[in-house]
């Protein structure tokens, strides 16, 4: 009798052991749709996937490369076609407006309230994810767009200190020209030129002008003498880059700074990836400045939206993923690999590299947190203005006044 009871107990225990994990650990599968496909980006996404899987989820990856303008329409078509992914990447800003307005996305109010998103995020970013009073997206990073990178060896060799004003910058450029080096490595694609232009707008024109131009879309601000000066400074830069800059990839331009062919490059913080790939160290081989001029941090970044799913498991998985995205641990790990800065202001930043640390310092002041143009205006306006900037750059005979005129016309039509 005792034997049998023991055996029965043993069997029951074994069954319980086997069934137990099976019952408790049904992983929450979720398809995540994004455009991070390069080696460095993939390593960063791994961090999120690892955290998600460790927390009981199962990350199903769908990546479509190409800066988002390829991936977004594909993802949107999937939502329309009735086969939505569980989570989808967008850039922080106005891109999610219509999807939210049409009720295709679920809100994250519960998760946001529970995890204290409002307190942890820069106010501009929190506003950027709220539509109609509901939290509609989970931000994951904070990319600085207005960095100025330089080759330390070149500057030292020519006795140039880090420029803090635009005048100092042009002086530095002259010295480099005299030494036979291309002062600024430019990639003549409209979006890159626009980044450069915005750097000048912020650094020379100032934060208020920038906001009036992009947020308020105020034509008077564009016609002002300050804006005109910004346009002229931008035009001046043509002489400080080489003629072959047309349609040059930003990576090739960074390559020029790395190899010492050029001294400076205006580019967002993703340029760090190229330096790192070439085994260069921040602060030692290359330097980084937010500016020159007024030191501000132009914040852009990526968010994830969550289309409405039909099944409950999916929705639970979405909750889990949203929590993971904004969790302190995952934020630090992801951004350390991505080159951007964690979007939460309350995390431990000791692991970040020298340049990211500079960025974090500047971000501590809310007045210096500047939303990127993606957050302030529609893609239509932003990209149409990029056309104008690109045209101005490629046409040395265009005057600053003509440029201003075109700018205002474009905005008027696109509104």
């Amino acid at each position, binding site marked *: 009798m005792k034997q049998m009871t023991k055996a029965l107990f043993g069997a029951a225990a074994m069954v319980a052991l086997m069934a137990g994990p099976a019952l408790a650990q049904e992983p929450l599968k979720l398809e995540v749709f994004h455009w991070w496909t390069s080696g460095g980006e993939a390593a960063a996404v791994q961090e999120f996937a690892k955290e998600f899987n460790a927390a009981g989820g199962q990350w199903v990856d769908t990546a479509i490369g190409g800066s988002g303008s390829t991936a977004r329409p594909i993802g949107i078509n999937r939502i329309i076609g009735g086969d939505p992914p569980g989570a989808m990447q967008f850039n922080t800003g106005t891109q999610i407006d219509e999807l939210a307005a049409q009720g295709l996305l679920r809100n994250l109010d519960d998760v946001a309230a529970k995890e204290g998103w409002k307190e942890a995020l820069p106010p501009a970013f929190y506003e950027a994810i709220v539509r109609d009073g509901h939290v509609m997206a989970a931000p994951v990073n904070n990319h600085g767009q207005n960095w100025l990178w330089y080759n330390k060896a070149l500057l030292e060799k020519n006795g140039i200190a880090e420029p803090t004003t635009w005048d100092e910058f042009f002086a530095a450029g002259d010295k480099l020209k005299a030494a036979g080096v291309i002062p600024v490595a430019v990639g003549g694609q409209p979006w890159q030129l626009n980044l450069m232009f915005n750097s000048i707008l912020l650094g020379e024109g100032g934060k208020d002008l920038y906001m009036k131009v992009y947020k308020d879309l105020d034509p008077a601000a564009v016609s002002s003498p300050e804006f005109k000066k910004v346009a002229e400074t931008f035009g001046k830069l043509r002489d400080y880059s080489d003629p*072959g800059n047309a*349609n040059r990839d930003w990576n090739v331009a960074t390559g020029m700074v790395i190899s010492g062919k050029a001294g400076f490059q205006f580019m967002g913080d993703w340029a760090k990836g190229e330096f790192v790939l070439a085994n260069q160290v921040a602060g030692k081989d290359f330097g980084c400045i937010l500016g020159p001029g007024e030191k501000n941090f132009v914040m852009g970044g990526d968010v994830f939206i969550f289309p409405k799913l039909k099944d409950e498991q999916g929705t639970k998985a979405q909750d889990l993923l949203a929590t993971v995205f904004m969790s302190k641990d995952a934020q630090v790990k992801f951004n350390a690999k991505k080159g951007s800065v964690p979007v939460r202001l309350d995390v431990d930043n000791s692991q970040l590299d020298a340049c990211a640390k500079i960025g974090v310092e500047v971000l501590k002041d809310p007045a210096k947190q500047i939303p990127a143009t993606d957050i302030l205006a529609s*893609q239509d306006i932003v990209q149409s203005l990029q056309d104008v900037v690109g045209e101005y750059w*490629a046409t040395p005979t265009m005057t600053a006044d003509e440029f201003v005129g075109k700018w205002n016309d474009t905005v008027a039509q696109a509104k």
Partner: protein
Amino acid sequence: MKTRRRMNVATYVALFPAFIVVVFAYLGTMLWTVQISFTESKLLPTFAFAGTRQYERLFATSRWSISLENMVIFGVGLIAVCLVLGFLLAAALDQKIRFENTFRTIFLYPYAMSFIVTGLAWQWILNPTLGLQQYVRNLGWTDFQFDWIIRSDRAIYVVIIAGVWQASGLIMALMLSGLRGIDQELWKAAKIDGIPTWRVYVNIIIPMLRPTIITSVVLLSLAVVRVYDLVLALSGGGPGISTDVPAKFILDYLFGRANIGLATAASSILLVIVLVIITPWLYYEYFRPKRERR
């Protein structure tokens, strides 16, 4: 009598797939395109009527008129050069030369490759700092200039060069198949009559290749109207906006800028232009009463 009706049914059955495709896919899309062009649609289609606002904006956008201009320049250039080069290459390959297979594959391979990366290679080659200009200068000819790609007024010609590179192999293949279909007796007869070779080509062979030439022109025209990858990879539509083409304009607004109202307006205009051009040809080719063949 009975047989005739049966045969007619068969014809309709055979044409049924094409019919479905035309009505649902093509007509359906064309009608949808025109409809959306009259709405305020941005990212997603809506029915908010906008009158002719999208068209007004379209005509006021310098990028659009530049892109139409470029399409014409590119079209004329590409079709003319491809036809001539394709024919010359085909005629050359038809001469019983050695290594015909190798040459033919060399001329045809560009068509096989995705232009996004081959375009990048061309971009590097044409770049004055990186490519041909610098290379030739390093060899000694310090005055050599070939910087068309960065000049707003010349950049479109560079796009033609890249387009010719990509497409003439296919035209050559078509012409070659046409040439090979011509009876060898014809050549012998012409030789006996003492007609010089070039004359045989111009007066006899080329007219015989008419159907092939027409197919080539249609193929190339399709490529011209839809050209996108080429421009994107080579010049990005620049410098500035000087090499913009309609397909790139439409796509930028359709996808990147989330303004399908404007994109469909542009598509509709494009459709109208194409309609105006090909209707006369279609009428001549297929609709006018023919001398009876059947």
